[in-house]
């Protein structure tokens, strides 16, 4: 699946700045609607090491109201949470109605690593994906807008960025070494990721593959997709129900109970 992605796409700076201004303004407006219509939003960012997930999230949130979103950085499971089924920490971090949660790393991180390192059997693998699909289905049933991005970079770009990082950043030696080790196992990664994308891309919550070799392109495509999904899921601002701040599902229910 990943080998059919055209990584040569790019944008020049002028178009990029234009597009970004347009998309970021649009996202700001849509985020206002998210709050008004009380819809929870989940955006998942997964990708290779050095695919610049962090920078994309920074650009997504740049002009958003900081009280309306949370960024969850998930790199590993904290030790006390291994005590539980692997989805528990994510149930905990779900956004409330009207809030946006951005996941830098997500419920996919742990199963993927386990798969690549060969620490789980094929059955366990299937089970993890089945549970994830059931999880996402429940989110969508509830009215959550779910958006999943896979940031794909070519191997050459990954290696170049890693070299860059090794020379310039003050990151600890062990992290860099680990990343070099991971980069050497590129083929295993591609296989595992292909499998993951195939099995967890559902009608409810499809994956969007973002071509990440060119950062400009990646930023614009992510924002544009997010905007499109949000616009599709939310009611038009002109809709009579869109202005009410109360969630429409519980509005009537609460009234009934009081009587």
């Amino acid at each position, binding site marked *: 699946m990943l080998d059919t992605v055209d990584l040569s796409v790019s944008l020049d700076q002028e178009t990029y700045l234009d597009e970004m201004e347009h998309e970021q303004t649009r996202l700001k407006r849509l985020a206002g609607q998210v709050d008004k219509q009380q819809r*929870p939003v989940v955006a998942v960012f997964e990708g290779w090491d050095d695919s610049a997930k962090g920078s994309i999230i920074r650009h997504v949130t740049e002009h958003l109201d900081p009280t309306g979103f949370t960024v969850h950085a998930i790199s590993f499971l904290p030790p006390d949470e291994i*005590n*539980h*089924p692997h989805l*528990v920490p994510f*149930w905990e971090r779900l956004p409330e109605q009207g809030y946006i949660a951005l996941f830098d790393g997500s419920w996919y991180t742990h199963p993927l690593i386990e798969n690549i390192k060969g620490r789980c059997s094929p059955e366990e693998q299937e089970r993890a994906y089945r549970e994830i699909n*059931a999880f996402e289905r*429940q989110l969508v049933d*509830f009215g959550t807008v779910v958006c999943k991005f896979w940031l794909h970079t070519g191997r050459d770009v990954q290696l170049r960025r890693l070299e860059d990082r090794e020379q310039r950043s003050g990151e600890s030696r062990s992290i860099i070494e680990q990343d070099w080790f991971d980069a050497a196992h590129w083929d295993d990664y591609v296989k595992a990721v292909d499998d993951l994308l195939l099995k967890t891309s559902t009608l409810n919550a499809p994956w969007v593959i973002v071509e990440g070799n060119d950062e400009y392109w990646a930023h614009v495509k992510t924002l544009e997709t997010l905007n499109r999904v949000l616009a599709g899921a939310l009611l038009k601002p002109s809709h009579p129900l869109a202005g009410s701040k109360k969630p429409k599902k519980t509005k009537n229910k609460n009234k009934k109970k009081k009587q």
Partner: protein
Amino acid sequence: MLENIDLKKSLSQEDYREEYPHLKQRLSTLQSACAAQGIPVIILFEGWDAAGTNAAVEALSACFDPHGFTAHSIGEPKKQDRRYPWMRRFWLVVPHRGAIAIFDRSWYRRVLDDRVLKRVSYEEWRKGFRDIVDFEQALAEDGTLIIKFFLHIGHKEQKRRLKLTKSKPSQAWQDRRPGAKKRHKKYDQYLVAIEEALERTETPWAPWTIVAATSRWHMQKTILETAAGRLDRALGGTVPTGDQFTQAPEPESPDA
């Protein structure tokens, strides 16, 4: 399904008292074995109003070390809970490895109370069945032992008990859930909902035990025995029985 349950089963309090210490000892042993092996356990009680889920929880919790279990009484979702997918509040209280969670009422509210009293739409409770089965499957495959009890009493018995609470204030705990009388009038609708729920959520990894709860002592004994049996099987039958366990080893005589 429920009409096949023999509600006349009973047990005298004396007989129960005789068996109780053994069961208590056994359950306590099994609990420490579960904690040692890191098996999470969920024991949940569903049942008619006034069927005695409270008494059941009390009887069971008296057998366990309080460090190792948490009892959850599940009422209507709070306002804050409604702002998330409905299953979330249960995911947040699943027992960690080696712990026991006892639920007095549970996620089955969704397909029982919420359905009969029309608190959620048809689609919502329909989907509830699948959410529940997925939830229990995920937990079971993660290693959780799930023991589900349904306490069954007849229509007349329920009526009698609800009346009792009026004349005997000391029994008022049986009517702690507000609106029990209102729900009693919907007995038939509840019956339909309960039967469907029991049928659709009966799985190899989380089977139901339907307990005839007319006699309190019979009900408590059945629950303690079933819980002990399920725990024992989950541990692979490796735990020595209570009597052997408590017996102090014979002091070795210096002559031997």
